[in-house]
């Protein structure tokens, strides 16, 4: 279809599901990028985008469960998916390790999503060919 030579993308998602269109646009982009032969180095959830990592998402059955769609996609494609730990902790998203550290009795982040620092994003900025941001819409 295209003569563009393969590049590597990092997709940063800063808009939350069911608040913004960001997770949908990013996933449509990611699927198209993979089928065109491009690499996706990393998906990085930042700000309100970390809500996408919550495994406790309960979407109505006639709506898309964006958490599940994204989890399936990144597991299939083996794409590292990172939620910023500082954004996540403030918003009540914790994995089992952080739940222990902060003495909480539950956790809602599990593989394929991981909680790591902004250093992961800096790494993408230096190594990916393109870093794209999928953001909240105009109301935010």
């Amino acid at each position, binding site marked *: *279809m*295209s*003569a*563009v*030579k*393969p*590049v590597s*993308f990092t997709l940063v998602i800063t808009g939350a599901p069911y608040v913004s*269109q*960001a997770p949908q*646009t990013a996933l*449509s*982009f990611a*699927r*198209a*990028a993979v*089928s*065109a032969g*491009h690499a996706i180095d990393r998906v990085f959830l930042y700000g309100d985008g970390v809500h996408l990592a919550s495994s406790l998402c309960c979407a109505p059955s006639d709506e898309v469960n964006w958490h599940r769609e994204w989890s399936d996609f990144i597991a299939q494609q083996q794409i590292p998916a990172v939620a910023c730990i500082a954004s996540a902790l403030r918003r009540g998203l914790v994995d089992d390790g952080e739940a222990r550290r902060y003495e909480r009795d539950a956790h809602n982040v599990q593989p394929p999503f991981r909680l790591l620092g902004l250093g992961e994003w800096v790494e993408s900025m230096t190594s990916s*060919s*393109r*870093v*794209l*941001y*999928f*953001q909240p*819409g*105009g109301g935010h």
Partner: protein
Amino acid sequence: MSESSVADGAGMASRHAVLHILNKPPGHARTHLCLATLAATDALVLIEDAVLALASGLDTSAAVYALGPDLAARGLAADNGQTGVIVIDYEELVALAAGADKTVSW
């Protein structure tokens, strides 16, 4: 800035210096910031709410693309009467992003 063409099936797109990807609606402060930094040799891609600019009018000499699924979702016709706007799908958005020297997400 190189003008080397990335030929593809859709007949799109020479290579642009900066690919500006905008998702904010017309009137949003971010839309003004995007337009203020848009050079005539750059390209602007309207996605999500930004496609509403095709209904309200858009004044730029840069190349303008609009994401088809977002137009359709909002009941807007292909280019909604704006001349020169190229309607693209996600595959073509990927090709534009991959081919650009630099991208900015607004």
